[in-house]
């Protein structure tokens, strides 16, 4: 049962009069209670897909396609309607989570404000809920932290506060955009554990956007791999981790493997060749210039998707690669 349906989504920007293709024809369904990892290198369009879901793209973006959340179309929806969905039904933990708190306001106020807004209750009535949520994300002395300013907390704690803010209204879907990038390795693991807890206990669907394949398996059931704005492979964690078929995913995995788990922050950089240029309209497979399996056919047309196994889909001409 799909909670969120993204159909044929394209996001384009105009940069100096030239089109920039940030997202190209992406179709993705997120089911109720499911947790999905979106993996891809920097600039592959991970954030833009989900900014489109919440209507957060810059005014310069042209968006095509269809986004449907619980039978309601979200594209071209009014701000007022979106404001009832943002934070309440679908919440987003932004990529730069730590600076997503206002440095001049107490943490408690920033939390209660979300409740005030969505449930129309007073700040006083919202306080116990906010404190309970701080406790829920394992912040000790939540009563004290309620009255703290962001600069008084460590990065890991701030990340927890931001998560608390995202789950405060018990959303159906939570999108976490690289929630661990700024954190030390042990804290990264704790944060992923926390998200996994919330996923299991609240039955919230989770989308984890990440560079880092090593973080994925303890939280997610499904992995979607993006390259140059397109989904090039998707499947269960097991499918992708052990039986990846697409040459890019394979390269990604071996790069992650060589660099030795999650300690290295930029494992993807070790893939040979130039990252794709988002200003180019793709005539063929975008991975062609870097692909060791490439054939002439690959630069003529965009590869069709083939089904490798039940959930496992790959966009590549070389169905023979195992």
């Amino acid at each position, binding site marked *: 049962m799909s909670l969120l349906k993204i159909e044929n989504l394209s996001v384009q920007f105009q940069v100096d009069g030239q089109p920039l293709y940030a997202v190209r024809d992406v179709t993705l369904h997120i089911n109720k209670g499911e947790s999905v990892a979106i993996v891809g290198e920097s600039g592959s369009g991970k954030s833009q897909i989900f900014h489109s879901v919440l209507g*957060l793209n810059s005014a310069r973006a042209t968006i095509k396609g269809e986004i449907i959340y619980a039978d309601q179309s979200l594209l071209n929806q009014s701000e*007022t309607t979106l404001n009832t969905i943002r934070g309440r039904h679908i919440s987003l933990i932004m990529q*730069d989570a730590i600076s*997503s708190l*206002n*440095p001049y306001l107490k943490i408690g106020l920033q939390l209660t*404000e979300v409740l005030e807004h969505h449930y129309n209750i007073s700040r006083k009535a919202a306080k116990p809920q906010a404190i309970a949520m701080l406790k829920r994300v394992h912040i000790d002395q939540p009563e004290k932290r309620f009255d703290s300013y962001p600069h008084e907390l460590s990065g890991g704690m701030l990340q927890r506060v931001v998560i608390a803010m995202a789950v405060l209204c018990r959303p159906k879907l939570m999108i976490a955009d690289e929630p661990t990038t700024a954190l030390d390795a042990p804290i990264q693991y704790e944060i992923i554990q926390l998200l996994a807890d919330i996923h299991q206990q609240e039955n919230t669907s989770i989308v984890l956007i990440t560079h880092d394949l090593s973080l994925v398996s303890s939280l997610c059931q499904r992995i979607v791999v993006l390259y140059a704005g397109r989904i090039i492979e998707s499947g269960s964690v097991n499918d992708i981790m052990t039986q990846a078929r697409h040459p890019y995913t394979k390269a990604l995995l071996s790069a992650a493997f060589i660099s030795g788990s999650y300690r290295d922050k930029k494992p993807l950089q070790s893939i040979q060749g130039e990252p794709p240029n988002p200003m180019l309209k793709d005539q063929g497979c975008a991975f062609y210039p870097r692909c060791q399996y490439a054939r002439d056919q690959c630069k003529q047309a965009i590869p069709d998707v083939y089904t490798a196994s039940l959930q496992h889909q790959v966009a590549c001409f070389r169905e023979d690669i195992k």
Partner: protein
Amino acid sequence: MTQQHNSTTEAPWKKTLSRLLKNKATVASLIILMVITLFTLLGQWFSPWELGEVDWDHIGTPPNWSAHHYFGTDANGRDLFVQTLYGGRISLMVGLLATAVSFIIGVTYGTIAGYLGGRTDTLMMRFVDVLYALPFMFFVILLTVYFGRSIWLIFIAIGAVEWLTMARIVRGQTLSLKQRTFIEAARVCGASHATIIRRHIIPNALGAVIVYATLSVPQIILFESFLSFLGLGVQEPLTSWGVLINEGAQQMESAPWMLLFPALFLATTLFCLNFIGDGLRDALDTKDTR
């Protein structure tokens, strides 16, 4: 919970305040300014003379304590102590009110322009540029000549000029605040534009304008004095320091006290306000102390 709460929570504005209070010149200025304000409000208690009351026995006399003319009298036998304190009320009020009016207009206008951005912003700021280019001093003079001397006209005229700079400052602040992640994060949580402006933009943009506003109070007082000096200030029986200085200057040789006292008060007030403005600027200068 047995753990000691040793680190006290400190609001960013409290830090600014404590930094401000460490600045001796600012604190001294604040105190002096308070004394001057109290003097203009309560000074009348200490004098038996009323504003505009003529003492036929003491015309153009220097300070004379036995007759309770502490600052002397003018050529019409009116008590200068009383005139100075009433004049002070007007001067301070013109300064504060005109600043308050331009503050409200400037902050509203600048926030809207900066927040909406794009074409609306360009249009709104062009309008400000046009107003900037107009010779306002000249307008004020024309208006006062035409409509007669009115304190309201002075408020409006001064307010109309001062808000321009404030709007520019706030717009600049808003433009840069708009880029901050926490503004987008507030949107992500479903906050409306009105909430974002009220909660996140205006409070954070205010610092820079407050400094400018504090510094524009003395400018306005001075401008009013200048108008008075041209004979275009407030009208009798009202008076202001500017009016008094103008009258005093005309009798500088025969009755120097008539210039001395109002000028002393005006100069002290201007000094204090400038020190406070500078102190505020320094106190607000260190951004986001982490």
